[in-house]
């Protein structure tokens, strides 16, 4: 689901639940989620996040 699709669903749900005040804050959350998804660690999901790029002795 793209952030835009998620936001459309979330807005509709907030309206259905009678919580219109949620809509502007959901837009803020959408911006944060867009940034999170753009973070470079998502480009290499197979990599162990603790790995700093060096080869451990055991692996040589």
């Amino acid at each position: 689901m793209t952030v835009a699709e998620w936001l459309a669903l979330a807005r509709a749900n907030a309206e259905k639940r009678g919580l219109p005040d949620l809509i502007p804050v959901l837009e803020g959350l959408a911006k944060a989620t867009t940034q999170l998804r753009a973070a470079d660690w998502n480009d290499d999901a197979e990599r162990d996040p603790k790995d700093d790029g060096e080869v451990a002795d055991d692996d040589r």
Partner: protein
Amino acid sequence: MTIAELAPKVAAGTITSEKLTENCLATIADLNPRLNAFITVTADLALARARQADKEIAGGRRLGPLHGIPISLKDLIDLEGMPTTAGSLVRKDHVATTDAVVTRRLREAGAVFVGKTNLHEFAFGTTTEDSGFGPARNPHDPSRSPGGSSGGSAIAVATGMSLGTVGTDTGGSIRIPAAACGIVGLKPEWGRISATGVVPLSRQLDHVGPLAASVADAWILYNAMQPAAARVRELPDAAAVKGLRIGVLAGYLFDRLDADVERSVRGTIELLKSKGATVTEAALPHADDMATVYLHLVFGDAAEYHARTLESRPHDYTPNVRLRLEMARYVLAEDYIRAMRGKTIIAHEVDRALEGVDVLVCPALSIPAPPIGAVTMPVKGGVEAVRTLMLRCTQPFNLSGHPAISLPCGNTPTGLPIGLQLVGHKGRTHALVQAALAVEAVISYS
């Protein structure tokens, strides 16, 4: 006077615990109507415990430096027989059936509990404005926030309503109010102090720790809060400033600062350098991503904890906290997992930044205490949301889990306190406190 100064006098019987407790209770009676630091005051229990402590001491029984010392607890920490409101009307009928682990340890150390302090509702905020029991106010300027979420705790220590206190810190909630109120706040390494019996915000980011009038007092409280096997008998010696290796976290943590905060923090770093500290620059490559990583984790965890009461008692929440908790329920699992990966990377980057230095240094709080009701504040680089600014310097170390301490390093021209933050290596909180004792001494004599 501090706990470290008073403890020998209590032990020697030259000051009684009853007298100290009466003084704190009198200060609460005097100031609490204006500052709203306490939700519950346990005067009768405190006086009874204080008299018991005096008898024990007179009989030769000594439990350590907290024996007979009046302290307070943030009101999301269980104290047997008393309400734990978490600052919310959602929990107004709750009564703790047993002590939290940290409460029990402090009780066993002889501490006297004078009451439960106000907080931002469910610790989900940085100002202590949104509390079901009304906003708490900064003792340096009651039109301003004391910081949060442990705002009542910081007020209590800053004014002498209690001599020490216990808070919690999920994104800065010990260090932020400590900085805003001009006291010391220690966020231990994650997992060092039990959170059992503490209302959670995010179990993976929550830290339980002390707020106190001095670094030594923070250590005394922290030491007693640890498991017995981890405690040490002696107060740490201050590190030597000459040769202390300091890494300054340049970039992100300095690029949205109030001008007075920047002047004071940079001035303190220069002062340390002039006393022989070695100062180098350090960096956190993913610093710009920290706020979004933090937000997705806290939201996911808070949504899970609050789901049932948001459905059953939505109107018992304060409007702002309810709105943010409702927003939290929309975080997707896939984004929560992305944030968990980010958290691991950030923890690794803080370890890397600490390589070759004893401590990292940065501000504890980007701005002085904001006016109550302020939504934004001007800083270098523009106008920013108060909440974002208040979390900016502290939340990285909740994500990373490293021990961190805030201590006063100056005041604005209008007298509002400014806080400096030191961050230490994991497994070396003792060394962090030694460095903080040294920095505190240098600042005190400057």
